[in-house]
């Protein structure tokens, strides 16, 4: 069963002079096990969309269903994990163990079951067991973000929603989170992330949703996204696009350094051959 949004619209400060329409006519379907990137400029409505997915906000019109359930129901909440941009904002316990155990305890799982889930979660994000006794606020940014991620994973969600999970981290911290997310996805959880970081996320994304001024202007596979005009692209894909615009026949689906090198060398060899 998927997450389904039908004709969803949402405004902030409704029925006041400050009313602003954040999202309109959103139709979206997210399947289990997908890796989805929600892209768009600041203020496009990306974060609002994530809050509608997990029931923090209720749609003004239209419906949101998580496996057929209203997302504000407790059972739906268990199926959806959420990680915010600044991990420090969602940590509040004295030790990492308590932090990760908080969710399972709240859902009434036994002590043994909770412990099992804490260890499972900590391993999923590749953190050492020794971290469990530490104070979450003594950790590095990347570690804190992984603890926030583990806390969400401890409920074994079917869908994991993240809002800019690698912003503010250094390259090492970014890679740690990306690796952890890949692992989570491979275990069958859908990963839905809002991001501006095309370079980091692009290799992982299977489906892309581009939002502009509150509307979905594109949704589809990464491959079809790369072929579209006027969308934000990772730097290497932009170079490939510029080359095609100049009549050089390079593969439009290329976005990694290695593939780009191969494409460019192919053109070079073809030209050399022609000359001979």
């Amino acid at each position, binding site marked *: 069963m998927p997450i389904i949004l039908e004709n969803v619209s949402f405004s902030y400060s409704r029925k006041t002079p400050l009313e602003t329409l954040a999202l309109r006519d959103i139709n979206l379907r997210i399947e289990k096990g997908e890796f989805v990137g929600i892209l768009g400029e600041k203020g496009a409505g990306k974060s609002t969309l994530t809050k509608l997915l997990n029931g923090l906000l209720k749609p003004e019109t239209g419906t949101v269903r998580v496996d057929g359930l209203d997302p504000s129901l407790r059972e739906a909440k268990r199926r959806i994990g959420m990680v915010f941009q600044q991990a420090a904002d969602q940590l509040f316990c004295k030790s990492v163990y308590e932090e990760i155990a908080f969710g399972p305890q709240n859902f009434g799982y036994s002590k043994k079951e909770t412990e099992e889930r804490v260890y499972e979660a900590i391993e999923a994000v590749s953190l050492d067991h020794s971290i469990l006794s530490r104070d979450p606020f003594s950790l590095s940014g990347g570690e804190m973000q992984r603890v926030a991620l583990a806390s969400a994973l401890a409920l074994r969600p079917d869908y994991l929603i993240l809002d800019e999970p690698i912003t503010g981290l*250094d390259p090492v911290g970014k890679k740690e989170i990306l690796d952890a997310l890949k692992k989570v996805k491979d275990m069958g959880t859908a990963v839905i992330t809002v991001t501006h970081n095309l370079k980091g996320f692009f290799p992982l994304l299977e489906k892309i949703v581009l939002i502009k001024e509150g509307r979905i202007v594109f949704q589809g596979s990464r491959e079809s996204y790369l072929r579209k005009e006027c969308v934000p692209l990772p730097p290497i894909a932009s170079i490939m696009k*510029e080359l095609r615009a100049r009549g050089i026949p390079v593969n439009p689906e290329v976005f990694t*350094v290695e593939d780009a090198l191969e494409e460019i060398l192919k053109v070079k060899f073809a030209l*050399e051959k022609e000359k001979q």
Partner: protein
Amino acid sequence: MIRLEEVSYSYPDGTPALENINLTVKKGEFLGIIGKNGSGKSTLALQLNGLLKPQTGRVKIRGMDTRDPSKLPGIRKLVGVVFQNPETQFVGRTIEEDLAFGPENLCLPPVEIKKCVDMALAETGLQKYKYRSPKTLSGGQGQCVALAGILAMSPECLIFDEITSMLDPESGKAVLETIKKLHKKGKTVVYITHNLEELYDADRIIVMEKGKIRLEGEPESVFSNPSLQALGLALPSVIELAELLKTHGMVIPWEKTFSPKSFAEELCRLFLKT
């Protein structure tokens, strides 16, 4: 302008943050400082205007030693710092009030304070927001207010500690453009980041790791240094591609790597030559 001699500093829990740093920041320079988390960048920033003092060695700001408490007001007037999270440095109810806080503390007469505030608003393009509360702004605007708050005190040197890392790319670029404009007008800028891409046109870059300066030089030489990755930094993918192309005899000049368009144009030129 700023000179660090043999500066070492450890935090109270014993973690060494800086070891034997020798560094001179020249007047009018745009100096980029880069390094992964925990490399000592922010500790270094705090040393540059006396918020932290060296345990060994000395930091001198135009000859004034930061360990001399009587010199601190003079130092703070010369060097201003903007941090990662602007909300932690707002004090006023409106932006105008917030910007007046610095000059007020410098005991300037009200007429002068108004001049300082108006100048700071103009430099950052915030005039139309002057009666708004700083808390109602977007992240990028918030950083501009924090920057304006420092500008109102007319420092000669501005230190920025990862100010764009929580912003989206567009807002980050806008803030960086404002800073570059100020640099062109003669301000000395020390810009700390872990995003190499922001330092393309810095005058000089230093790379830090474990409290030490590991690399130093112009952007071109630093970006093409093979040890960057070992220092925990990611090369921009465009530079990575340019470096790989070089090994196949296709040389893309440094300044052509700044935009996808110029990169592609240069490639086409190379194709024509073959």
